[in-house]
């Protein structure tokens, strides 16, 4: 039995990994077109070379809030959508992808709010473009924190429409016959004018630089056509792109795929390595390791909860194995991101959430190895799941792996200060989660179990000490970074203060324990409050600028944070509730 349960549990873990692998597999061809291969073409956008697929996913996420949409009863993925936007704008214009929730905005574009239809196509919006632009440029001078809900919504809509508008005018001017026609009409009187429009509107640069040129040598179609017009030769990438364009319009899949191979070989000659790098990122995009990871954590948590009432000897190791495979996927995703970006793991709020979750899961795995009571697994799975959910919601503009602004452009400090402080967050959250588990167990478990209680208290205490070390070192390293770049060690800036609050709170917990003022339950309650402090210093300070005038998009995050804090206070009350409320006493 023991042997069997062991194999069964690890089989479950392997199965989860296999499912994760399926996500990374390439999609089939769409109507015979190798859309996925097209998405693997490297382009330059946002300061770095990435696959077209990344631009497609992030643009669709920005415009539509999802990475795919349903059209005529079929799911359209980002690569196929991008093909339509680039080569068949008249088709793409009909896709209802613009989400508009704001009622005032719906009123502006003349839609009735009676039906639940708040998805619009570019064609629907096209008659209101002037009005949208007028309203948006009136709202833009107001700083984002001070805008009204409507102003925020209109600026946001304008940005999305403008992004779409740029995309559909990146490879060809929308409505023109295409790249092939542009190549034929070089030297005609109107051509130069069109080339200028194209190079100004282009959202990305698709033509690799000539051998030896730096990254600023990437060209967009307009620039390349202008060079050709001036007699400096036709860029070798223009012809295969023109063929791709023509084949896609004609619905000729075999020629499209042949032209794609031709384009790939042009890229390989001009910029060896770019294609490989782009394909790696394409696999990363497709695998969605953080989404898969959070799903596995969720299953692990469910399995563990069931294990408390049914067949613990099989289900508890299964949950552990699942957590372990979730951690593998999470780790691989994190590692891939580090390699692709060439940066330490935490570079923005989104990646900090991914990393906090990772730290909590790894800590939880260690704690579970040490105590083997299932609590480490439960808490780690819950913490991993919640933080990845938070990350998914933070990345509403897509994880573009954007470039670091000058002051942050320091791998050394990103690797030391940011990583240590984020591990500190992981620690306080994990301690808080253990404390919540402790509080709930007191009320739900039918028998008193001082040994487990003691074990939980030991875990929480150990992790609090761990968190103190990392929070303190992280905070001081932050001070030293500030001293290096702004000339003062400590400036009482909101973010610094947030970090300090965590350190002070942990110091209070530890001193109160050493002095004997608090016992097991006191530590647990204070650890739960640590969740509040950490969440406030992590996200609260980002909202401070918004403060009293919190309108629009931060509204949602603000309420989420308030809700989180309120729930923690309820858990504290549960933890504090006297013995007569415990199940085990009745």
């Amino acid at each position: 039995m023991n042997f069997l349960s062991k194999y069964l549990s690890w089989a479950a873990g392997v199965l989860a990994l296999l499912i994760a692998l399926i996500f990374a597999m390439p999609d089939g061809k769409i109507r015979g077109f190798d859309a996925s291969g097209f998405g693997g073409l490297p382009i330059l956008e946002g300061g770095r070379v990435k696959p077209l697929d990344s631009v497609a996913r992030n643009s669709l996420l920005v415009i539509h809030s999802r990475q795919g949409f349903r059209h005529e009863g079929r799911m359209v993925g980002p690569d196929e959508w991008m093909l339509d936007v680039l080569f068949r704008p008249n088709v793409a214009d009909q896709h209802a992808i613009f989400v508009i929730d704001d009622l005032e905005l719906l009123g502006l574009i003349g839609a009735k709010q009676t039906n639940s239809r708040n998805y619009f196509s570019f064609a629907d919006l096209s008659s209101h473009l002037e009005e949208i632009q007028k309203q948006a440029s009136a709202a833009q001078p107001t700083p984002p924190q001070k805008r009204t809900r409507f102003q925020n919504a209109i600026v946001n809509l304008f940005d999305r429409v403008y992004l779409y508008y740029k995309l559909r005018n990146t490879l060809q001017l929308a409505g023109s016959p295409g790249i092939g026609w542009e190549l034929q009409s070089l030297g005609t009187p109107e051509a130069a004018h069109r080339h200028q429009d194209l190079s100004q509107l282009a959202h990305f640069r698709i033509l690799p630089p000539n051998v030896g040129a730096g990254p600023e040598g990437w060209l967009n179609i307009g620039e390349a056509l202008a060079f050709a017009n001036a007699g400096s030769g036709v860029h070798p990438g223009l012809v295969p792109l023109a063929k791709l364009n023509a084949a896609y319009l004609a619905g000729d899949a075999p020629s499209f795929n042949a032209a794609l191979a031709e384009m790939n070989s042009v890229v390989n000659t001009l910029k060896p390595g770019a294609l490989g790098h782009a394909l790696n990122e394409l696999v990363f995009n497709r695998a969605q390791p953080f989404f898969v990871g959070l799903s596995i954590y969720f299953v692990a948590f469910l399995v563990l909860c069931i294990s408390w009432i049914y067949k613990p000897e099989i289900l508890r190791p299964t949950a552990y194995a699942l957590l372990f495979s979730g951690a593998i996927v999470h780790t691989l995703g994190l590692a891939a991101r580090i390699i692709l970006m060439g940066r330490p793991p935490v570079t923005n709020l989104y990646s900090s959430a991914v990393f906090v979750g990772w730290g909590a899961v790894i800590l939880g795995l260690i704690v579970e190895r040490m105590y083997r009571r299932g609590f480490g697994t439960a808490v780690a799975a819950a913490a991993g799941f919640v933080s990845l959910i938070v990350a998914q919601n933070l990345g509403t503009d897509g994880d573009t792996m954007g470039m670091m602004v000058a002051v942050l452009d320091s791998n050394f400090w990103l690797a030391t200060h940011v990583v240590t402080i984020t591990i500190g967050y992981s620690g306080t959250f994990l301690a808080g989660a253990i404390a919540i588990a402790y509080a709930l167990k007191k009320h739900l478990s039918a028998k008193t179990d001082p040994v487990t209680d003691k074990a939980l208290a030991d875990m929480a205490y150990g992790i609090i000490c761990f968190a103190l070390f990392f929070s303190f070192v992280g905070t001081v390293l932050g001070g030293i970074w500030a001293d290096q770049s702004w000339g003062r060690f400590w400036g009482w800036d909101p973010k610094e203060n947030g970090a300090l609050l965590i350190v002070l709170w942990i110091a209070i917990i530890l001193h109160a324990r050493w002095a004997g003022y608090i016992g097991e339950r006191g530590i647990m309650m204070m650890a739960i409050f640590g969740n509040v402090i950490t969440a406030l210093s992590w996200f609260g300070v980002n909202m401070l600028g918004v403060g009293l005038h919190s309108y629009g998009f931060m509204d949602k995050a603000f309420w989420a944070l308030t809700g989180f804090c309120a729930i923690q206070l309820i858990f504290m009350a549960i933890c504090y509730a006297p013995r007569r409320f415990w199940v085990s006493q009745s």
Partner: protein
Amino acid sequence: MIKTYASRAWTFLKSFQLTIVLLALLMCLVLFCTLAQVEMGTQGAVNAYMRSFIVWNQPLLLRLPFPGGALVGLLLTLNLIAKTMDIQRTWAKAGMWLVHAGMVVLFAGEFVAGMMQVDTNLSIEVGQTVNFVQSYKQMELAIIDVTDPNWDEVYSVPDTLLSKGGAVAIPGTPITLNVKKFYANAELSNQAPGALPSLATAGVGAGVSIVERPVVSADNEMNQTSAFVEPVAGGRSYGTWLASVAIGVPQNFTHEGRTYTLAMRLHRQYLPYTFTLKQFRHDVYPGTNIPKNFSSLVQVVNPSRNESREVLIYMNQPLRYEGKTFYQASFGKNDTLSVLSVVENPGWLLPYISCVLVSLGLLVHFTIVLRRSMKRRPDQKEV
């Protein structure tokens, strides 16, 4: 009797209760200071909450008194010192000892910074040579002897002295300045017809209306400091002038063949060396406006040290020179103007020492604790 009081005080100072109460108070202060920054700006909030002994009259605290950061910090330092001395000098407590000693150093560093740190900046255009740093907020009234076209002799009166009013003798010159009225912040406008005549009888101030404004402290706002002054020399008045930050044109008067300019400006500190900006770079990532780097190539010339060398100041790479640290802070005028922020803090090294002590201490202590609990764990499993 005295001994019991002393020992009671000692017991109080080293008590855990005091530590916890002070830490909790500090948490409250940090929280208030953070929230107050929305309205008051960072500097204003820090001065009100952290650099004061008693916080008084703050709307956030319903105008009730609250112990300020300086008081809490001082008590915490005493508590910390008492605690540190009280910790047994055994190897088992070595980690704790290091942590608390490190904290004492950290607090000392913050005190030194609070008391002695001077923040200024240095704006310099490409090709320009500058030999002074200027304050962010503090003003001065400069009386500049511009008679010699090659050399300006500068005499200045700080705003703190101007605000007291009365007569101010300018040392080194025959001039005495009568400060008739001082505005820490004011708004100037062209005088409307029929308005009350200006106090000024000379210079552009005669045609200007002035209204007092509340002092601003937010980081991105600047006070339009102004004053009506009457230079008197050799028993002769040279009229009443309006000197203001808002007035850009030079206002001159001549006494016994020497020409003096009156100018209200940000307080300047002249340096015994000069900076010449040779090149300013503002790099962006390809195809974007995201800044990748800012750097200033500066020629430092110091006659007293017989030194002339080039220094590249860029992000995260400041120049530490003669007790001052120069950081790349800002830029302007189409990338031809570079702004360096300048900090003088004699205690800048203390946090570094503290960081090493505390990290080491925590590491040592938690290792000791972990080893102890690991040794205990096997017997627990039997239960």
